[in-house]
């Protein structure tokens, strides 16, 4: 039986700076062994534990979609010991990957529905994975209307600019970008995410809303969605927690009797309301 704590080895193929202040970068990783890549079957919304051996491990949401073959992408913000060490890495550096972990967005159950994707700031990572997945030729026909609402503090903070541009050119997806304050040269909307969602007013009919972002954004957005008649089962959240093992054994990521790393990180609002308020 394999030791579940041992990471598979990858090397960094490319590093892309995502924001102006350069504290968010997307790392493209390539598995050293062919069979490890074959075994890494994931769905959007899952995460992996990335190791810099000697420095530590951190749980990062997978930013690439399973339809983008050959490599996997992770967007990492420089915040603590391990993430800072990542920002000092260069191409070719060996990175350990354990995963895919977590439950992911329920792409099967979402089939036939209209998808409303609402992201704020740096948390857009796994939503990018989902959007790319939904837009792929193999999958697009299985889903209804797709609306993406993505807010940021300012234009320098907007991630995945090239991907967003590509999506905006398509006619089978509505992309609404917003920043908090007016800026010269900005063509998108201005305002916090919640009022923009109210403005766009996606229909709750046969729809599912996926919300990812800082706590205050989630709170205000959920209030708007409820106004728009979205039921608790129709609103999905991806939670963050301090994690170490990522496989439900070290105990620390629990909310009530659920472990965020195994039973989550995706929970519906209906499930969250049943859980104690410790997140």
């Amino acid at each position: 039986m394999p030791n579940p704590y041992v990471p598979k080895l990858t090397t960094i193929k490319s590093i892309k700076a995502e924001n102006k202040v350069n504290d968010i970068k997307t790392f493209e990783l390539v598995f050293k062994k062919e069979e490890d890549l074959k075994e890494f079957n994931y769905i959007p919304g899952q995460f992996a534990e990335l190791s810099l051996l000697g420095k530590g491990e951190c749980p990062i949401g997978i930013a690439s979609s399973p339809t983008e073959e050959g490599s996997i992408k992770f967007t990492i913000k420089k915040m603590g010991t391990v993430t800072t060490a990542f920002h000092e890495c260069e191409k070719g550096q060996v990175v350990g990957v354990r995963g895919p972990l977590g439950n992911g967005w329920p792409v099967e159950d979402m089939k036939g529905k209209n998808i409303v994707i609402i992201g704020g700031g740096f948390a857009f990572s796994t939503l990018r994975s989902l959007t790319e997945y939904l837009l792929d030729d193999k999958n697009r026909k299985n889903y209804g209307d797709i609306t993406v609402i993505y807010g940021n503090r300012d234009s320098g903070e907007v991630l995945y600019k090239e991907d967003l541009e590509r999506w905006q050119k398509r006619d089978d997806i509505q992309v609404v970008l917003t920043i908090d304050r007016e800026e010269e040269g900005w063509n998108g909307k201005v305002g916090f995410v919640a009022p923009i969602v109210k403005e766009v007013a996606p229909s709750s009919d046969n729809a599912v809303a996926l919300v990812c972002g800082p706590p205050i954004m989630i709170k205000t957005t959920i209030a708007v969605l409820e106004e728009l008649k979205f039921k608790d089962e129709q609103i999905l959240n991806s939670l963050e927690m301090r994690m170490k093992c990522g496989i439900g054994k070290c105990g620390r990521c629990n909310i009530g009797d659920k472990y965020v790393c195994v039973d989550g990180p995706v929970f519906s609002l209906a499930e969250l309301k049943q859980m104690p308020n410790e997140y």
Partner: protein
Amino acid sequence: MSERILKKEDINKFYEAASKTYKFYGPVREKGNIIFKEISNPEDLVLDYFNSKIPPKEIVLPRTETLFEYEMKGNDIIINDDVVPDEKVLLFGIRPCDAYSFTLLETFFKEGKYQDDLFIKRRKNTTLIGIGCNEPKSTCFCTSVNTHPHDKENVDVFLTDLKDKYLVIPISEKGKDLVKDLNWLEKATEKDLEKALKLSETAELSIKTKLDLKDLHEFLMKNFDSELWKESSQSCIGCGTCAFLCPTCSCFDVIDEEDKYNNRGRRVRVWDTCQFCIYTLHTSGHNPRPGRIQRFRNRILHKFSYYPIKQGLIGCVGCGRCIQYCPVNNDLRKIINKFNELKNKEKEEMVVA
């Protein structure tokens, strides 16, 4: 009849025989404390003891355990994940409550999509020789949590202390093979069996602490925000003694250690507890359990609510260590009783309404 007798004067002989195949762990006394250690000299074995301070879980879940080691060779990394030794371990003298904890821990580490292979391997390599408790302490409450002082279920061989000898009952296949190999053991008599039964009955009757835990797990969850948590945790200093000495607590922290000069390192896990303030601290500074009340509540709920909800069993074995060693004497029994009082009060009010 498979029951045998092991005379206490033959312990050395037993040790000699067993240590040919197994690493022999048993209770020894160090600085006044009983601790389960590897024995090289059978004279060190203590046969007259109550229980160890540190629970024997440290044999299957060491305080510091290497998860894997690695070596850097240029830009390549070689990982060695074969870190659990292949040795067989015999744990002599484990009490029924601690043996039950091994079963509970195994259930936890095996459940779900991922299994903790390190623990499972160590557990598989460990043979348990349990000894029933003839004189439980007033802080023991194993009978309230689905086990009892002479519970034979969770061990490979069960011994009953008949003063100058042990009644030996093989339980599992492993145990049956072990006893068969000790073909010099005398057969037990009817009298021995009767005596053992009497001791078991007396021990069970002597348990003074009885906790009513029926349906408490639902009640505790429903009363997550009760003021009673504030009252119960007031004297708690968050030291983590209860967790470190608890046979069923298994939370761990993961640390990387680097030996830059020799281009190698390892990832280890160490015992951790939800009582530490940084247990759930996010890098952003947000802490879902910022205070003593939340952390205290989490531990109690984990044992008496979350574990029962998931496994249908209470996550406590009634060993009483948390009661004996809590530095501020925050007695678990008092807390459970307070919640039971509240539960009964609510029931009464409902009936009246």
